[in-house]
């Protein structure tokens, strides 16, 4: 049997006030600050610390950008040189061209032909 009275559909102001005033301490502002700090720790929101936003966002460019670019460039050059060297005769010519001192006869650095001693000695004799 239900013995509700007519006031049951309305909040009880006295009990309500008692519950509101005594269930939660008066530290509302501190609690808001705590929640905002926790959200930042979790990487939520625009104010989140950089390290929580992702590895590639800020840390990598600041710490590794220049060494990374240099390493990548060196690797690229190495790969290209390696490809050319292993690419038969044309690669040898390309490498020889790259290493040839300015003014030296190209034939001297060709690896697919034995160098002619006269070619090697001719510039020296001419200089004297």
């Amino acid at each position, binding site marked *: 049997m*239900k*013995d*509700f009275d007519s006031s*049951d*559909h309305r*909040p*009880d*102001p*006295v*009990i*309500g*006030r*008692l*519950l*509101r005033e*005594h*269930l*939660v*301490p*008066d530290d*509302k*502002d501190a*609690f*808001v600050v*705590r*929640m*905002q700090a*926790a*959200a*930042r720790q*979790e990487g*939520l*929101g*625009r*104010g989140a610390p950089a390290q929580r936003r992702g590895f590639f966002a800020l840390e990598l460019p600041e710490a590794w950008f220049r060494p990374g670019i240099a390493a990548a460039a060196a690797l690229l050059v190495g790969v290209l040189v390696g490809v050319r060297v292993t690419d038969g005769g044309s690669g040898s010519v390309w490498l020889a061209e790259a290493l040839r001192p300015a003014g030296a006869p190209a034939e001297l650095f060709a690896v697919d032909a034995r160098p002619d001693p006269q070619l090697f000695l001719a510039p020296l004799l001419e200089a004297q």
Partner: protein
Amino acid sequence: MAGVPDSELVARLVQGDEEAFGRLVAEHGPAARRLARLVLRDANDADDAVQDGLLAAWRSIARFDPRRPFRPWLMRIVLNAARDLRRRRTVRQTQALGGDETSREAAPDRQAGRALLRARLAEALATLPERARVAVTLFDAEGYSHGEIAELLDVPEGTVRSDVFHARRNLRVLLAPFLEEVG
């Protein structure tokens, strides 16, 4: 940002607005903390649960239907967080509900009176089943309707009416001297 409706704050929260989050916490935090304390009966555990709930709400804010009221949605998340935490932890009974809360600025006799009232309130609430504690607090302190509480707790509306009725009756008896003062 005072007076900004929840719908606008929620829209800002979707964009990651930390200030909007703070405003929502300020607005709904006290009710969420009361609810969590009714479930966990420990102030620190309750605040931890509210934190879990608020952060979970932010993470899933994109799934919130802005046509619906925000507070019941948030309260359901906080209630689930509190129940999860209760399952994960052995609830510490050494610290009574509200027992750690003292008004630093109050005079000693008033402070003692408030502490005593809190202690009695905690004892009185402890005599009630969890569902009744939640129901009477949501109805009398937070202004929820029986239907809203029924939806939140997943019980029939008649059950909520009965819970509120019996909880009030017990609280009125156990807190009679204080209620006369407050009233």
